[in-house]
């Protein structure tokens, strides 16, 4: 039970991390900006 809970929790977290990173990575490539989420008011860099 404890083992299964650890497996499920940690696996879901790593999958979330992978997809959150992928989403941000795609956004970076599209906008050319790495930190838009941190500083939403920053002007885009040409």
């Amino acid at each position: 039970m404890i083992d299964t809970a650890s497996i499920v929790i940690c696996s879901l977290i790593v999958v979330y991390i992978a997809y959150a990173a992928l989403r941000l990575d795609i956004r970076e490539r599209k906008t050319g900006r790495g930190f838009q989420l941190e500083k939403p008011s920053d002007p885009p860099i040409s």
Partner: protein
Amino acid sequence: MRDIFLLLVALAYAFGGTTAPFVFGLGYLWTDYFNPQLVAYSFMRIVPVSLLMALSAALAYLLSTKQPTKIVPGIWLLIVWAAWITLTTTWAEVPEDAWPTWDWSFKTVCFAAFLPFLFKSRVQLEAMLLTIAIGVSGSLLAYSIKTLVSGGRYGASLSLIGGNSGLGEEATLACVAIAIIPILLHYHRHSLLIKNRFVSLGLFYGLSAAAVVAALGTFERTGLIALIVFAVLQWWNTRRKLSIGVAYILLLSMSGYLLSDSWFARMETIQHPQGDVSAMGRLAVWAWDIDYAMSHPWGGGFNVFEINHISIPIQNSPTAAPKMVEQSARAPHSIYFQVLSEHGIVGALIFAVILTAFFANVRRIRRKAGSDHELDWASSLARSLSASGIIYLCGGAFTGIAFQPFLYDLIAAGVILNQIMRNLAATNPAQSATSTLGGGAQRRLTEFPNRPVVSTAKPAFSESP
């Protein structure tokens, strides 16, 4: 059911990897640390997830890259190390056991050398380090809960992963568990992926607490040493030295209520090893390792300890005469003596150069980024990598973990961070010539890992291992 769940996780990585190669790299790291094949019950035990992820990552990188990543000195050092351990295996004293160990050790070093090709931006580096930390957490979360339920004991084998290798070995788990804490604490403050403050607090501090409980619950002296080193580093790096110092004193005074007598008895053997076969055996085998390296400076290959035969003097009381205990094939249980006997004086020198280059690299990053408020994340990450490395290497002085992936992945993370900093400087060369990394905050904070560098201006960060 568990196998199907693990298969779905592997497929999720494979699906993401078709979009960006670094996700295959994350899949490999998850496999390396989480070991799904060891926690599965049926078909996932035989699926070579690690091999598939590594091959997919290499293939995806080759197909997607337009401008190959330059091989920097840090990567060259790992390649030299991989070549040297291969050479020493060719003249190994015990070839039938040396080659299987070489097999996974070689892959560990080679994949670490490949990581800077896959992970090139701050987001990707964060995903890499968090995947490692959470992968380790799979084992230590289960271990910590079982410790809280049962109280833990020496050799209880409460780990998620069975067996006596990798994170299934309790000294290794204790050392790595404490070594990931600086990384977890760094990402509590500087994560781009987990922005919710409460989730971040619960996840990173919760896992840090679980790491401490698991390390103590293993009853391994390595865990205590790693914990002391971590506490000293935290105190040294904090501005709130008084409050942290008071917290330590409070924790120490409460430790008598929280930890059992058997735990204290086990830890006391660090100070008084004379009556402990395990502790005295290490001292005896280290002496054998030094003698062996002096007579065989090229090393004896992996698992050379299998040919040793040592006499261990055990003194149960100060007045009693020492009793000699004979042991054979005693492992050195130390990174340094393991490298010295297995890969010789030459190998020890290469290993020392790799470690020196790693610490010099993160120190350089800290020095350059330290004064810039907007590069706090880089300075903090460099400090965390350095702290993790120190904890691992201090804990590793008492357990043979020279070829565990964590050390090499830390080194690779240092190389990647250095490359990110170089890219940051190169995107703004005019300003980097007049200040550490240039004056424009947004431009400094923007990463263009794949953008060709058009300027010939010297970057603020010189290339380094």
